[in-house]
């Protein structure tokens, strides 16, 4: 039971009713949490979002809204979408490296004799990986 108003009602300067939609998720000891969310989404939007959800999911929703609001405050242009874009790029790059490594493994597994007869200096040569992967394809 809240001894006083929640952070949202304090910020909005209103009475905090017993069934306040915000109070379970915006305790008075963390005012910045509601300020961030209100700045990006607006109190009425947040209230509507939370009200549409079953009560057992509202904590996770409030946490994720806070995290997204923080990203948007730090990066007003891209918000958390900037991080998503970066992660997608990372995935593509690691997949590319993985494909090249696996191609070279397959090539070496099938042609150990050919590699022994070539100069061993080619093993570390970046062009070797391209050659191996193109042969494998």
């Amino acid at each position, binding site marked *: 039971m809240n001894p006083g108003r929640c952070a949202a009602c304090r910020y909005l300067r209103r009475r905090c009713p017993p069934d306040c939609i915000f109070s379970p998720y915006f305790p008075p000891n963390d005012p910045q949490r509601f300020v961030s969310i209100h700045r*990006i*989404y*607006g109190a009425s*939007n947040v209230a509507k*979002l939370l009200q*549409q*959800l079953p009560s057992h*999911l509202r904590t*996770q*929703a409030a946490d*994720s*809204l806070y*995290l*997204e609001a923080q990203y*948007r405050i730090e990066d*007003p*242009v*891209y*918000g*958390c*979408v*900037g*991080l*998503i*874009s970066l*992660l*997608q790029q*990372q*995935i*593509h790059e*690691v*997949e590319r*490296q*993985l494909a090249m*490594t*696996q191609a*070279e*493994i*397959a090539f*070496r*597994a099938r042609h*150990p004799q050919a*590699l*022994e007869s070539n100069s*061993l200096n080619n*093993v570390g040569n970046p062009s070797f990986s391209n050659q191996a992967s193109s042969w494998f394809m």
Partner: protein
Amino acid sequence: MRSCSPCAACKLLRRRCAEDCIFAPYFPSQDPHRFAIVHKVFGASNELPVDQRGDAASSMVYEANARVRDPVYGCVGAISYLQNQVSQLQMQLTVAQTELLRIKMQQDSPSPPYLAPTNIFNNIDSQPEYLNFPSSTNVIQDPSLKTESIWT
């Protein structure tokens, strides 16, 4: 020269669409859903420099769509999924690179007979699983998330 019809934002907000309306370049009247979804999730009053507004509008549309699809986690769910994918792929890459190094050292060695691959990790069989590109994950998500275009 902009068309006389109010932009999607002003239509939804039921106000006159000024000549210099801040929303008009990014929320044309032909696509009312685009602003509707942004307005549903975000407020309508965040200000930005002009040259950044296009990308900001697109990223807000993306974020709002993610929140509508997943009202509990929104984009945070997508970030969690992608981070998990990155971790799994990096682990696979490390295993593959270790195996490649082992093969190289074996093939560069002048004398010993060919040895069967040894298991570096307990869960690797003699026919390495990573060659089949395992994609198991406990998170149920749209597989197009990995390549979904953000900028439409």
